[in-house]
């Protein structure tokens, strides 16, 4: 035994898929306010069935009906004929396990995924950091409770031992090896996860508990049962270090979520979306980043999909801010077909900087904080009105008024243009200039002018214009010009307001 003792924690999640269904239903009903339209009723007996037609996970109603894990479908159906069946999805469970591992990664550096719904955490390096085993465990418990999945756990010096005890539902967080060994010795042989052949041979010898096997000298066992036994014993005693692949934090954020039932209205999507944004928030928090752009894929029946782009000019990481932005976009969205799956992809992110809202803004009285910063406001406006509907005016270096003024991206700083500003310019421009007929021209009164603009003489199309300020019969103030090539014609260029 080495001087530095290793300790492992094994977390076993017996009903990931079922718990997920329960969790999803809670968030969906809380937000959409209607719970009874689901295809699945989670309060009635429900079972998750494996590929070999065995019951793998049962809800409490199914247990009350007398069903047990490992039962065949035929006997289950005869016991409880209204039993709802959901096929087991191993891939989805693996994904959830991965998510849980990412969640715990904040608290523990070495986490390995196990194929039978379990996580192995290496405790020993973390204990010094948290100043004691119990503090660390309390922290983990809190996280697990928030995640909302059922779990069993056990600790041991060898990953295999921890796993055996956790799957037995021992649920003890101990760092005393003798108690653990005692518990291990009492473990029934059929739960020891020995290879089937070995287990049968040992039982024929009359051994019932793991302790009985451990009493026999190791050399004897190996001589009689061969290499497989040796490997097993080495893992059990920790003589050979376990081969574990520790997880690495994900490089990209891409999460999908199967919906419980087909959603036809876009506001129903907010519940499931909140769940996805929660995952995004976790991802961003771990990396200290802000998200600027997200893609949201709404997968629909018959392989159709609709795609939404969510933008935030300021960059957000909190789930509630993203929810607000997506709410505005979903309001405008018409679903072509009912949605069955959501997929959220992070497209653009950046390091988090200190965000500030003006706390002591000059114009706001004390005690009133700014509700949105300018960039947040911009994101919200763009989300509802559309990106092209929100613009800032900009000035180009051109003499012709209709070419000098145009629009640029909102709130983008613009290059300054040297030169003096003209004194007389109206607030609004008519683009293109409107030719006035003779009757309109006669009714005009000119008050100021001319101001001559000659432009483009260095190019093919030269323009020479005389500008006037005039008033029409309604008393409106107009900005007019006369093109020197056809001096009889007056054009309306703008309105003074």
């Amino acid at each position, binding site marked *: 035994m080495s001087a530095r003792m290793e300790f492992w924690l094994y977390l076993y999640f017996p009903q990931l898929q079922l718990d997920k269904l329960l969790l999803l239903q809670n968030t969906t009903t809380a937000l959409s306010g209607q719970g009874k339209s689901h295809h699945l009723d989670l309060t009635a007996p429900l079972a998750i069935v494996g590929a070999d037609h065995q019951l793998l996970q049962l809800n409490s109603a199914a247990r009350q009906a007398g069903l047990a894990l490992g039962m065949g479908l035929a006997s289950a159906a005869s016991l409880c004929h209204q039993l709802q069946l959901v096929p087991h999805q191993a891939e989805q469970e693996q994904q959830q396990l991965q998510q849980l591992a990412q969640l715990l990664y904040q608290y523990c550096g070495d986490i390995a995924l196990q194929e039978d719904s379990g996580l192995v955490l290496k405790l020993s390096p973390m204990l010094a950091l948290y100043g004691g085993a119990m503090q660390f465990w309390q922290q983990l418990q809190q996280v697990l409770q928030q995640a909302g999945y059922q779990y069993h756990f056990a600790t041991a010096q060898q990953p295999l031992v921890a796993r055996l005890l956790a799957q037995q539902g021992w649920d003890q967080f101990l760092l005393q090896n003798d108690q653990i060994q005692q518990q291990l010795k009492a473990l029934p042989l059929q739960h020891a996860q020995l290879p089937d052949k070995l287990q049968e041979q040992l039982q024929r010898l009359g051994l019932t508990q793991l302790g009985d096997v451990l009493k026999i000298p190791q050399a004897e066992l190996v001589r009689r049962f061969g290499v497989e036994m040796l490997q097993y014993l080495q893992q059990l005693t920790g003589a050979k270090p376990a081969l574990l692949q520790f997880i690495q934090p994900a490089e990209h954020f891409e999460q999908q979520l199967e919906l419980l039932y087909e959603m036809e209205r876009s506001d129903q999507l907010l519940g499931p979306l909140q769940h996805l944004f929660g995952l995004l928030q976790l991802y961003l928090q771990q990396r200290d980043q802000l998200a600027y752009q997200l893609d949201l894929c709404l997968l629909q029946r018959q392989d159709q999909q609709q795609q939404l782009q969510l933008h935030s000019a300021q960059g957000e990481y909190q789930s509630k801010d993203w929810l607000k932005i997506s709410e505005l976009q979903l309001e405008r969205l018409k679903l072509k077909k009912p949605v069955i799956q959501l997929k959220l992809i992070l497209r653009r992110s950046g390091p988090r900087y200190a965000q500030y809202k003006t706390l002591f803004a000059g114009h706001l009285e004390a005690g009133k*904080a700014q509700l949105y910063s300018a960039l947040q406001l911009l994101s919200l406006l763009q989300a509802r009105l559309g990106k092209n509907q929100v613009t800032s005016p900009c000035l180009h270096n051109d003499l012709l008024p209709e070419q000098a003024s145009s629009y640029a991206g909102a709130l983008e700083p613009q290059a300054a243009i040297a030169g003096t500003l003209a004194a007389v310019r109206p607030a609004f421009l008519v683009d293109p200039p409107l030719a006035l007929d003779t009757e309109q021209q006669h009714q005009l009164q000119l008050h100021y002018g001319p101001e001559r603009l000659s432009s483009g003489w260095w190019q093919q199309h030269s323009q020479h214009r005389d500008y006037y300020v005039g008033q029409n019969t309604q008393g409106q103030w107009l900005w007019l010009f*006369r093109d020197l090539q056809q001096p009889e014609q007056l054009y309306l260029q703008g309105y003074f307001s």
Partner: protein
Amino acid sequence: MNALLQQLQNRQLIWQASQTEAPYEHCQSTGFSALDKLLGGGWPQHNVIELQSHGACAELQLIQKALERSGSELLQIWINPPATLCAEYLLQQKRSLHQVLQLTAPRSADALWAAELCLKSGSCMDVLLWQNNLNLTQLKRLQLAAAQGQSQLYFFRQAMTEQQLLPWALSLQLTPATAGLQIRILKRKGGWQQQELVLPWAELYPQFIKPELQQKHYSKPPLSRVS
């Protein structure tokens, strides 16, 4: 008789002179002394002001001094302006262009939503909105938003013959006349309405109308020679 009066009073159908609301808490000078006098100090602050006109008659010029005083740290929002904004004009008013946002919202519900959001955000000072219809609830919402974000909404509307009874803090009708702009108070919180004023054009457009030139009108525009 007394019982009847009491009943009417309970239903808030009687107006008493003692209930006269105090004029606005905060005023901002309009920059025109005659108008300030008419309005009892100036524009009411953090509120919604209605300006009715047929357009192109110095309605922006009236509020220009107030806009200038708002400072340039905060945004200025133009919602559904009647025509393209002239960038040179905004620069004349010492406004940096990237602090100006123009919103195009074809649906009036969207325009009102945007106005409300901007008003209460606390990052905008002035919101200019061109729209024709507004009901009581919408106006109340805008007023609350303006008070919350301590911002100002200028509501531009086509002049109407039929007057709606809405509790504007201030509602003005602007009609161009030969001598100047005729300003009529349609509704004013805590003050008498039906007061009028003519503001000379030379005061509104000092850049191109000189007071001494105002009497002189060209009958026909002078023709320039083709160069």
